[in-house]
C-alpha cells in the first residue's frame, strides 16, 4: 500500500491530507476538516483538476483584456492547452460578470466565463 501526503488547496486552511492508495484504488483518506477536502483528495489522486483563471483579449473596451475562469475545475493536464485556445479569442464589450466566453472548452463540458465587467470605451 502506498501512502501519499497532500495539502488541500480548496480553502486557506490548507489541511494536510494523507491518502492510502492500493494500485489505482483509494483505501483511506484522513486529515481533512470538511467535505470539500475529501472530494479534493479523491480528485487529486484519481484525476487532478484545477480551476483555470486567465485573461482574453478585448477590443473596444475600457481595458485591453477581460479576466476569465473555467466555471468548474478542469483536468490539470489541459491547463496549458486551454490557455492556448483562449489566447486565440478576442471579445467585445459590453461584457458582464458571468457571461460565457467559450462554451465547453476542449470538450470538458465546462464553460469559460468572464469574471469582470467590460464597458465600451
Amino acid at each position, binding site marked *: 500500500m502506498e501512502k501519499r501526503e*497532500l495539502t488541500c*488547496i*480548496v480553502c*486557506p486552511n490548507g489541511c494536510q491530507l494523507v491518502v492510502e492508495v492500493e494500485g489505482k484504488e483509494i483505501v483511506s483518506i484522513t486529515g481533512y476538516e470538511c467535505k470539500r477536502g475529501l472530494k479534493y483528495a479523491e480528485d487529486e489522486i484519481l484525476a487532478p483538476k484545477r480551476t483555470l483563471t*486567465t*485573461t482574453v483579449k478585448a477590443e473596444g473596451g475600457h*481595458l485591453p483584456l477581460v479576466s476569465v475562469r473555467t466555471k468548474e475545475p478542469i483536468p490539470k493536464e489541459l491547463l496549458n492547452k486551454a490557455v492556448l485556445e483562449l489566447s486565440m479569442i478576442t471579445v467585445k464589450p459590453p461584457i458582464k460578470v458571468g457571461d460565457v466566453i467559450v462554451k465547453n472548452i476542449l470538450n470538458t463540458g465546462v464553460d469559460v466565463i468572464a*469574471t*469582470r465587467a467590460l464597458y465600451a470605451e
Partner: protein
Amino acid sequence: MMEYDIVIIGAGPAGLGAAVEAYEKGVKDILIIERDSYPGGILQQCIHNGFGLIEFKEELTGPEYAERFIEKVNEYGIKIMLNTMVLNISSEKIVKAVNQEKGVMEIKAKAIILAMGCRERPRGAISIPGTRPAGIFTAGTAQRYVNMEGYMPGKEIVILGSGDIGLIMARRFTLEGAIVKAVVELMPYSSGLTRNIVQCLDDFGIPLLLSHTVIEIHGKDRVKGVTIAQVDANRKPILRTAKYISCDTLILSVGLIPENELSKSAGVLLDPVTGGPIVNESMETNIEGIFACGNVLQVHDLVDNVTKESRIAADSAVKYIKGLLKQEGKFINAKAGSGIRYVVPQIVNYDNIDDKVKFHMRPIDVFKNAYISVKSGGREIMRRKMQRMTPGEMILIEIKKDKFLDNDLHPVDDITFEVEVV
C-alpha cells in the same frame, strides 16, 4: 463646501464593504472617493480564484468578489467619485481632494472611514546591491500589467520573496509562457499560504529556495541575471554558496506596508509594528469619528477578513453619527507578548463591547502544537490550542465581554497575548 454623513477614502474591498454596511445600517448619505478609474481596488487585478469562501461560501476570483459589492453600491445609489485623489484630511474631518472635472474641492464629513489599502515594499526598502537596470518590478505592478493592461514584463523571471502575490504571479507568468527560474525566500519558511505553494509552484515544478536571497543584480540597461546565495541563521549571505541565475526580470514580493500618508495628515497615530493606525474595538482611531479598516489598518491574507473588519468600522461610524459610540469609558490595552508580533485592536473600551471583541495577530515565527494564551496581571483569561502558526497566516481570537473582568468583576487594565509551546 460639500457635506456628507460618511466619507470613505478608497473603493477597494474595505471601502466598498464599509459603504454597503453603513447604508444597510441606516446612514444613506455616503461618498466614496477613489483614485482609480474603476472601483474594486487591487481585487481587480487578482484574477485568480480562492476569494469569498467565508463570505459567500463559494470560490470566486478577485474581480467577481469586488463586483458583488459594486452591484450593491450601485443598487443603493451610493456615490463613488472616481479618478479623484485625496490630498489631505484634517482632524476636523474635512477632506481635500482633486479631480479633472471639479478641480480642488473640500468635503466635510461627520465620520470618515480610512480604506486606502497598502503599497508594496520596493527594491529600495530591502537594499539589494547592484546596478539599476530596467526589468525590476514589484509583484503587484507586474500583476496589473499582465492581468489588466496586457503587457508581459519579461521572459525569464526570478522572484524574490514568497508572499502570496509572488507565488500567484509565478503561476501566472508560467501560464503566459514565461519561465520562472526560481522563487527565492530569505526566511526558512514561506510567507505565503501553503495552498499557494502547492498549486502555484509544485504544480509547475518551480523551485522554492528557502533561506536564500539575491545578493546582486546584473545588467546595465536591462536585467541580465541575479546572483543568489544561501543565508545563515542571522540572515547574512554565505558567499561561498553564491550562484548566478540568468534572467531578464526580477520580481519583488517582499511585503506590504499600509498606506497611511493621509491618516498622518489628520493626526492619526500609527502603530510602529503594523504600520497602520492604532484603533480600538470599534476600529476608531485616536481622532474621534475617523475609523480605519482593511489593509490600511493591517495587512490581511484574506479579503473575507477585510470585509468583516469593514463592517465593524461602518457599524461604528453609524453609531458615532447617531451619538451612540461612547468616547469615555474603561480602556483596556491589548499587548503582544512573547511569540506575538502585534495585536489589533490595540485598545478596547469596555463600555463599547456588545458581546465580544475579535483580535487579529501574527506570530513572530512558525510554531507547531502551541497555545495562544491571553493573560491579565499573571492570570490566564483564555487559552486556545493552535495546530500550526506561521507569520504568513493571520490569527483571529475572539474574547467574550465577561472575560475582560477580574475576580472583583472590574474591567482589567490590560491583556497580553502570548504563544506557549507545549
